C-alpha cells in the first residue's frame, strides 16, 4: 500500500468496534463476511460444522454477499473454488480432518497454481484411533504442500487473522493460498469476548481486489492454465524448476508480507499480534518452552507462576508455521540454554512432535549446541493444563544439568 494511505492510517484512531460474545467458528465467519469474498464453497465436518453454518446464515440473512456452493464433498469444494479463483473471485472455505484429506488432490494443485484461496482449518486430530476432537495432526500432515499456515491463540485472533489472510494471500509478492488454523473445540466452540471491526475500516484495509491478474480462465486473455510440464529437456532452461523456485520465493516473501499486514492491522484496528513468533517473558530467560495455538494460554499462566517461584523461564510461541520462521526463531534461541517443545500432534517418522522435528533443523543453524526435548500432548481433545506445563518447565530446566531424553514425553499418558 502507498505511504500516503499508511500515514493516514497512522493518524486515525481505531473507530469504536462492536463488542460481542462469540465462539471461534462464529468469529471466523464474521471475519470472512467482513473480507467480502465473492464465492464460498462449504461442506460441514466436526469441529468446523458451525463455522459453515454461520457463513450460510450470514449469506441467507443478506449480511454477506457471496455465492455459496453446497458441494457434495470436500474434493468438489476446493475444485469449485479453484475455478472461481481463476475467474477472478475472492474465495473461501473451511475444513479439517477427513475433509482436508478428501480435498488433498486440489489442495496440492492450489499452491502450484498460485491461487490466493483462504481456508480455515479447524484443527482436528487424525481420525484413527477414531476421534472428532481437537489436535493438530490434520494441518501438520499437509505442512509440506506450499500453503501458508498460521495458527491462532485466541478467538479475537481468529477473527482478525481470517481477514488478514486474504490480504496476505492476494499480495503480489505472495500469491499463495493461506490456512488459518484454529484449534478444534478450544477455539471453535469456546465462547469469548471479541471486538468486531467496522466494515468501512476493513474495506479500506483490504484495498482493491485483484485476484486473477496472473492466471485466469478468461476468453479475453487466452492462456493455457497449468499445461503438462517436464522437468528438463524442453526449449530453454527447465520450466518446472523455474516455477518451483518461484513458489519458494513466494513462501519466503510471505514472511515479510505477514509482518507488514500485521503492522498495518495494529495501526488501523488497535490490536497487535506477533506475526511470526511471539516471545513471552523471554528477557533474562535461561531456558524456554515452545507452543503452538490455543494451548499457549495455559502455558503463559504456567510461565507466570514459574517466574513467581524464581525460575528464569520464558515462552516462545509460533504463529506462522509455514513458512517456518527460521530467522525469528534463531533470534529467540540465541537467548537461551535449553528448549522444550510442546506439540499437539505426532511425527511418526522421527518419533517426536513435528514442530520439534523442524525446530531441530533451526537448532542446527544456531552455531552452538543447546539441549532440547519433545513433548506431545493435547491429542484427541485432551487438555494441556497449567499442571502439565509445569511438568514441561521442570523437565526442560533439567536439560541444563542432565542428559536429554531421546524419547518424547507424552503429557497425557497417565490421564
Amino acid at each position, binding site marked *: 500500500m502507498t505511504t500516503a494511505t499508511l500515514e493516514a492510517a497512522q493518524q486515525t484512531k481505531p473507530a469504536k468496534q462492536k463488542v460481542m460474545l462469540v465462539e471461534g467458528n462464529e468469529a471466523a465467519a464474521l471475519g470472512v463476511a467482513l473480507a467480502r469474498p465473492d464465492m464460498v464453497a462449504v461442506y460441514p465436518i466436526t469441529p468446523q460444522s458451525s463455522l459453515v453454518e454461520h457463513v450460510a446464515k450470514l449469506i441467507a440473512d443478506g449480511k454477506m454477499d457471496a455465492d455459496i456452493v453446497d458441494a457434495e464433498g470436500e474434493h468438489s469444494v476446493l475444485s469449485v473454488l479453484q475455478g472461481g479463483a481463476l475467474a477472478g473471485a475472492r474465495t473461501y472455505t473451511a475444513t479439517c480432518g477427513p475433509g482436508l484429506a478428501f480435498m488433498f488432490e486440489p489442495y496440492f494443485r492450489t499452491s502450484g497454481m498460485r491461487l490466493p484461496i483462504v481456508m480455515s482449518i479447524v484443527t482436528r486430530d487424525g481420525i484413527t484411533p477414531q476421534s472428532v476432537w481437537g489436535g493438530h495432526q490434520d494441518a501438520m500432515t499437509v505442512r509440506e504442500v506450499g500453503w501458508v499456515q498460521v495458527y491462532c491463540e485466541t478467538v479475537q485472533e481468529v477473527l482478525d487473522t481470517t481477514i488478514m489472510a486474504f490480504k496476505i494471500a492476494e499480495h503480489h509478492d505472495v500469491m499463495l493460498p493461506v490456512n488459518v488454523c484454529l*484449534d478444534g473445540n*478450544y*477455539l471453535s466452540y*469456546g465462547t*469469548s469476548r471479541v471486538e468486531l471491526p467496522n466494515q468501512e475500516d476493513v474495506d479500506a484495509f483490504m484495498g482493491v481486489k485483484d485476484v486473477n491478474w496472473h492466471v485466469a480462465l478468461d476468453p479475453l486473455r487466452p492462456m493455457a492454465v497449468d499445461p503438462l510440464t517436464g522437468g528438463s529437456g524442453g526449449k530453454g532452461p527447465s520450466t518446472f524448476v523455474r516455477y518451483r523456485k518461484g513458489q519458494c520465493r513466494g513462501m519466503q516473501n510471505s514472511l515479510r508480507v505477514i509482518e507488514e499486514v500485521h503492522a498495518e492491522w495494529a495501526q488501523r484496528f488497535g490490536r497487535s499480534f506477533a506475526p511470526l513468533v511471539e516471545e513471552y517473558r523471554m528477557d533474562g530467560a535461561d531456558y524456554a518452552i515452545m507452543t503452538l495455538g*490455543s494451548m*499457549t*494460554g*495455559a502455558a*503463559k*499462566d504456567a510461565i507466570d507462576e514459574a517466574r513467581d517461584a524464581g525460575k528464569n523461564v520464558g515462552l516462545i510461541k509460533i504463529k506462522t508455521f509455514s513458512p517456518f520462521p527460521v530467522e525469528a526463531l534463531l533470534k529467540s534461541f540465541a537467548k537461551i540454554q535449553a528448549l522444550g517443545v510442546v506439540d499437539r500432534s505426532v511425527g511418526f517418522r522421527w518419533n517426536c512432535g513435528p514442530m520439534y522435528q523442524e525446530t531441530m533443523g533451526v537448532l542446527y543453524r544456531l552455531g552452538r549446541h543447546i539441549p532440547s526435548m519433545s513433548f506431545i500432548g493435547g491429542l484427541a481433545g485432551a*487438555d*494441556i*493444563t*497449567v499442571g502439565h506445563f509445569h511438568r514441561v518447565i521442570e523437565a526442560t530446566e533439567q536439560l541444563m544439568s542432565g542428559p536429554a531424553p531421546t524419547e518424547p514425553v507424552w503429557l497425557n499418558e497417565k490421564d
Partner: protein
Amino acid sequence: MVSFLRCSDREIRQLTNIYTPDCLICVDPTLARSVDIFSGLKPGGTLVQATNKPLAEVALSPNVATVGLCDAIGIALDIFRKPITNTLMLGAFARTTGVVSLEALKRSLEDSDFRDAGLKQNLLALERGYHETTVHTIERRVAA
C-alpha cells in the same frame, strides 16, 4: 455432560477444562447419585442445585460452604411444560453467588435471539429462578 465457564476482570488465557471449580451448578436433581459432581471443588466452594428436597436431604461434600437450592424442574414444568432448567439455574446462580446481577442477565436475554413467547418465558424463568432459590451457608466445625 459438563461445560465450563471462567469469569474474571483480567484477561483469561487458559482455555482448558476446569478441574478445581469455585462453584458447581447442577441442573439435574438425580445426577449426584451416579457421578461424583464434587470432584475437585475448592474448599469453601458453592453448589447451586436443582432440587425440590430440603437442605438436610441434599448430599454435600466437605468442601461445600454455600448452597443454593431451587426446585428448577418443578418451575420449568410450570413455565415451559418441559423439564428444561437452564435459564432457571442461571437465575439461581445469580442469587446464590452474586457474580452476575439479575438485571444483567435479563439485558443479555433481551439481546439474544429469543422473541415473543420464548423471550417472555425465559425472562420469567430468570426471575423465578432468582427469587425462588434459598441460599444456605454451611457451618463447619473444625476439629480442635
